[in-house]
């Protein structure tokens, strides 16, 4: 479970940790740098969650609770 959480929470931690370094109005192809940084990690979140799903303990992945 810890491995899965570590991967799943990567975008969470990185998005927040990066904020002080991207706090700029620089126009990057029509989007301010701050907004672009957040957008990138929003888009990458599904990728990390898919990976987190593969790393879940087997009992979680095959949970049949209905």
């Amino acid at each position, binding site marked *: 479970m810890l491995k*899965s*959480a570590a991967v*799943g*929470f990567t*975008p*969470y931690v990185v*998005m*927040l940790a990066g*904020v*002080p370094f991207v*706090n*700029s*109005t620089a*126009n990057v*192809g*029509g*989007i*301010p*740098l*701050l*907004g672009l940084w*957040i*957008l990138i*990690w*929003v*888009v990458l*979140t*599904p990728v*990390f*969650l*898919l990976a*987190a*799903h593969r790393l879940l303990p087997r*009992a*979680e992945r*095959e*949970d*049949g*609770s*209905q």
Partner: protein
Amino acid sequence: MNLPLIITAVIVGLAVVIGFVSHGRTTMDLEQWSVAGRRYGGVLLWVLAAGEIYTTFTFLGAAGYGYTKGGPAFYILGYGALAYIISFFLLPPLWRYAKRNGLLTQADYFTSRFASPWLGALAAVVGVVFVVPYGTLQLEGLGDIVTTVTNGKVSNATAMIVAFGLVALFVFVSGLRAAAWTSVLKDALLIVAVLIVGIGLPLKYYGSYSGLISAVNHAHPGHLALPGSSRVLGVPWMISTLVLTSMGFYMYPQAFMATYSARSVQAIRRNATFLPLYQILMLLMFYVGFTALLVVPGLKGANSNFALLDLVKKGEPAWITGLVGGAGALAAIVPGGAIVLAAATLVGRNIYRDVISPQASDLSVLRVSRVFVLVVMAASLYIAIRSPSLIVNLLLTAYDGVTQFFPAIALSLVWRRTSKTGVAAGLIVGVGLVLYLVISGHDPIWGLNAGLVALIANALVTVAGSLLVPGRASREVMAAYAPRPMEVAGVPAGTAQEGTAAP
């Protein structure tokens, strides 16, 4: 009659019809009414789980926030994705616990997990207190939208009374089904409206997004970063607000309840994985806000809620104004319906049954809850008409408040000793601090979101209280969180059932 008004009215009318029809042929018992029999996967669970994303807050608030504050608005783009990450891990065990113990409301969780109806009642009171401002917020947004698209022909109060009378009725009749099915229409229309105005308006005035951003940077240097035009909302505020709002996302009683309606843990995780993509469109609303800043400058305070609508009226044909008005109205009344449903069920289950009349049958709980649909509606309406205020600030207060449930819920999943004493003390401290800090104007405090400061105090008190007076949850209680394999003791895959029987 004018065209925008007609289109708006048709859209709202269509939603009302869908709300009533969604009742279908189901026999409406309490479980069907409040959590739709826990049968949702696919589209209905998706729109319910995303309920928070496409609301009036998104529609007017995001544009308004981009307009008045600038860079700080980008938190609205990020918090949903972060919330879905938390939900990916937090909701599956909660859902299993709720399913196995037949929970219907958020406060039910407190009653059940800590074996304390009084704690459940406390959670219900806190939930209702904070969810009513949120309902009020939706009402005010609706009033603004209808008044603006009709050029003041329909007054704010009339619009609110008519629309919310209709909502109260369809929620009364169809419960969560109404909220789910009308959400499908609402989300579809909002996406179309966001695409039309979010692409059309900035390009019409500035030719390209890049041109728009350059123009904003030229006219308002620093607006598009932190603290933007807000002065106080800097980097620490941004980070603390993202943390707070991502934890609070599912702590709203109606969002928590919507989770119970899921068919399975797999459906919850699949949703959490892809929902972040649903939020990307939010970016377009900021562009609309930035465009408005340059094209219709000078809106202050609560009037910034009109940034989007003023710009639409100025720059788009009448039928688009009508479409935006209708989509915006649904963005208010559909979440409004879910909110009222949650508040009413909290009163019926956790105040009426748990504390006042423990012998009450499900049928009489359903009856009381339905009466409270009307009561809560009336209360929100009263507040909305008497004291209009800036949409986003109200939301942040409500958000700070409901997020105070988070420490208790997160801890209780993994720590057997989490106790009712600790939870009650933590909740009271957290909520008390939120109210004090926000009302006395200390938000942000030390550059941080005041809600997060209260949350930390709350978590510390919860832990300390649980160490002093430990809870004694049995192994059976904790086992209710655990996954169960598809074939339990020879039950064929897909038919395993436990606890209260489902249809």
